[in-house]
């Protein structure tokens, strides 16, 4: 069952701009790329001198929906994948982002803003792989 979602260009642009502001602020304040897989993966690394700011960023990330829920009511999401798919997907996302040094935020937002060739290639590859995975699961075997 594919859940149809409405096209929401305005909230998408506004939310995207907030993500951009976050990236600019983290660079201006701490000199860091706002790449979630780098921030989270770094926090999990064996020995690292700057674990605190990474954990604080993740706390902010998790606190944001709580604030929205307190201020504006429930945040509803739809997860179509079953438990085994979620485990496989989680492992692939975890390993893939560390192996490839970034995800939608680090390569997608920050790296493409810097016109990094590595980021442009990464985004092209993960977009294509994501679309292929969706096509196979929804249209070929779904």
């Amino acid at each position, binding site marked *: 069952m*594919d859940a149809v*979602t409405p*096209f*929401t*260009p305005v909230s*998408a*642009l506004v939310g*995207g*701009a*907030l*993500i*951009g502001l976050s990236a*600019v602020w983290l660079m201006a*304040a701490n*000199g*860091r*790329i706002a790449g*979630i897989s780098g921030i989270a993966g770094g926090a999990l*690394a064996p020995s690292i*001198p700057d674990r*605190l700011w*990474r954990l*604080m*960023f993740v706390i*902010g*990330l*998790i606190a*944001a*929906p709580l604030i*929205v829920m307190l201020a504006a009511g429930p*945040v509803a*999401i*739809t*997860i*179509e994948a079953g*438990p085994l798919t*979620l485990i*496989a*997907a989680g*492992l692939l*996302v*975890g*390993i*893939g*982002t*560390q*192996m*490839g*040094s970034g*995800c*939608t*935020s680090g390569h997608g937002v920050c790296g493409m*803003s810097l016109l*990094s060739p590595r980021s442009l290639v*990464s985004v092209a*590859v*993960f977009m294509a792989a994501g*679309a292929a995975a*969706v*096509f196979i699961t929804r249209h070929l075997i779904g």
Partner: protein
Amino acid sequence: MTDTQTARPAASLPAPLAALGAGLLFGLGLVISGMINPAKVLNFLDVAGSWDPSLAFVMGGALAVTAIGYRLVLPRGKPLFAERFALPAARQLDPRLIGGAALFGIGWGLAGFCPGPALSAAALGMAEVYIFLAAMLAGMAGWRWIVK
């Protein structure tokens, strides 16, 4: 712990507080944009089916602000609460970059979660999110401890 330098600016209070603020802004952006919803992400990737182009607008908004903002911030030479801008130095298009992006993309397309939205969605109290997060964090930690 292994760091012997004293009085690291990044280890003082402003930098972690600035990171908390950045995380809050980022999370708000994920909720408002709808990126926190895996169904919306999967529908963006489903060009042949129930296509929802919203995610392209999220990316567009984020890129416009970041591209302009970085060009204002980076010429200042030094961040507010750290010694220098930590910009990635790697330049080569190696198999790790491409293989990693491919694995990540497949995982992203299977569940509709990338790392940011998955972490933010931990606030929603859904078992599915915790299953995904446990696997994702295990994958990240495994790579950092074993391979790197």
